[in-house]
């Protein structure tokens, strides 16, 4: 009897150990190496298609998903690991590109939800059940009518439940409505204004809904009247005048900017160009030198000084140096063609 009692647990222990060892051998033994296509599929299946509704990159027919699959295959061919490939997509699209949440940040909360929510449900359910049972126990028996012992005041349990729950529902609805209101107000305060509302507020250039130069000018004038010391408003008005060919008025606005913000590069450069056009190259150079001292490499100033030196003061090499510098700092600048022509002409002597 004693022997049987001892061998029983021993046999169970032995069987368990054998099963565990077998499982370990099966688990640890490496299977056949997955093909590259299988690897690519596995990675794609773990990524969410960014332009689809809950489809993986592997399953999505969208062109973007197709290109993501191509990239995965190319990356695998280049010897990149699955983790690195995933990390590259995460760095561009964020963790939401992964089909399963990560174990960090919000991902932790998401992972915990399946445990927390049922747990909380059980607790709440338990509390409610307990209350219900205790209520039943406390309630008077159904078959005990006692007209003579009718209570003076009605017990609380017997009170009609309708109004109380209705009151709670009203409170809940009010709270939700308040939440909606507060959130909308918060979002409204945080979000930048919409395009339509910026038409009146910042009409520096030709703006959406007001493509006409005259309309832009009128808006810029209004803005300057509202904010007479706003540099951006004066600059916008100067640009509006310049675009309509009203150079004198543009000059007045640039001077206004220079009064409020003496170091303003755009206004000073524009004034230098005006001085050059008005046949005052020395004055133009003095102004633009100051700009370039404060903002070396400012393309418009380099262009202006190049013109002034080359065509106004006839300082050939200095002008050429400025124009070359312009080409360097503004690879797609508006004056490239002019500058290239001027440089070509200046090789033969100062252009007239």
């Amino acid at each position: 009897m004693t022997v049987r009692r001892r061998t029983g647990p021993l046999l169970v222990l032995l069987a368990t150990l054998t099963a565990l060892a077998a499982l370990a051998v099966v688990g640890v033994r490496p299977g056949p190496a997955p093909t590259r296509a299988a690897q690519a599929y596995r990675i794609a299946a773990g990524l969410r298609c960014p332009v689809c509704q809950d489809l993986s990159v592997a399953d999505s027919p969208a062109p973007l998903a197709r290109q993501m699959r191509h990239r995965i295959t190319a990356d695998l061919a280049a010897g990149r690991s699955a983790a690195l490939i995933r990390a590259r997509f995460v760095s561009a699209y964020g963790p939401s590109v992964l089909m399963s949440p990560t174990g960090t940040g919000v991902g932790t909360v998401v992972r915990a939800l399946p445990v927390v929510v049922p747990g909380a449900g059980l607790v709440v359910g338990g509390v409610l059940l307990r209350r219900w049972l205790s209520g039943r126990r406390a309630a008077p028996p159904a078959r005990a009518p006692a007209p003579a012992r009718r209570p003076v005041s009605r017990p609380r349990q017997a009170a009609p439940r309708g109004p109380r729950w209705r009151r709670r529902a009203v409170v809940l609805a009010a709270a939700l409505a308040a939440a909606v209101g507060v959130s909308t107000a918060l979002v409204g305060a945080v979000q930048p204004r919409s395009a339509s509302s910026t038409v009146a507020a910042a009409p520096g250039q030709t703006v959406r809904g007001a493509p006409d130069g005259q309309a832009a000018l009128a808006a810029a004038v209004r803005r300057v009247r509202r904010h007479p010391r706003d540099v951006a408003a004066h600059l916008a008005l100067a640009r509006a005048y310049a675009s309509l060919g009203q150079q004198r008025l543009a000059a007045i606005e640039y001077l206004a900017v220079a009064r409020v913000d003496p170091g303003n590069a755009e206004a000073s450069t524009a004034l230098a160009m005006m001085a050059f056009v008005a046949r005052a190259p020395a004055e133009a150079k003095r102004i633009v030198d100051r700009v370039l001292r404060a903002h070396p490499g400012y393309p418009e100033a380099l262009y202006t000084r190049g013109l002034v030196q080359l065509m106004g003061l006839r300082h050939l090499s200095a002008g050429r140096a400025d124009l070359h510098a312009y080409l360097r700092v503004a690879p797609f600048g508006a004056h490239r063609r002019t500058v290239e022509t001027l440089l070509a002409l200046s090789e033969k002597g100062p252009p007239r």
Partner: protein
Amino acid sequence: MTTRRTGTLLGMVAVVALVVVACLLLATGLGRGNAVAASPLVGHRAPDFTLPALPGTVATGSERQVRLSALRGQVVLVNFWASWCTECRDEQADLNRLWTRYRDARVVVVGVDFQDAAGDARGFVARSGATYPVVADRRSQTALAYGVRGIPETYLVAPDGRLVDRVVGAVDADRLGRRIDALLDGARS
């Protein structure tokens, strides 16, 4: 009495939790407008690219390709678009305005054509009057590196190469102009 008090307390906690969750959901959900949108790349170095110029476009001139890192020191506006995209057509005037306004103030607009036929893209550029450099991302590798989800999408790159904004949907020249002004001011000071 204690059970009633616990119940009331639980109810209050539930209501407060519900309100807080509703507030958070609404604030984050409604906040995703058609404007500046979050991107994990914001604040980090913008992915570099070297893309060929779209054949036949006027802006590229002698430049047969555009390399982002070669534009370091300038504010770069990388705009992903395609000829079949209606919103891209809508935003074209704003992009042209920004380009005209800032091209000589150390700002470069780069149009990146994406998921498009070359002929259609050339036609679009010719009609739109775009004079800024336009390149073709034929295999969408640059779009994937930037995390583009749809078009148009525009990325603002600071002179130091950092990606500072992502604009989902059509750009607004005024709003983006203010951002560019701020970046230029920062770069000058």
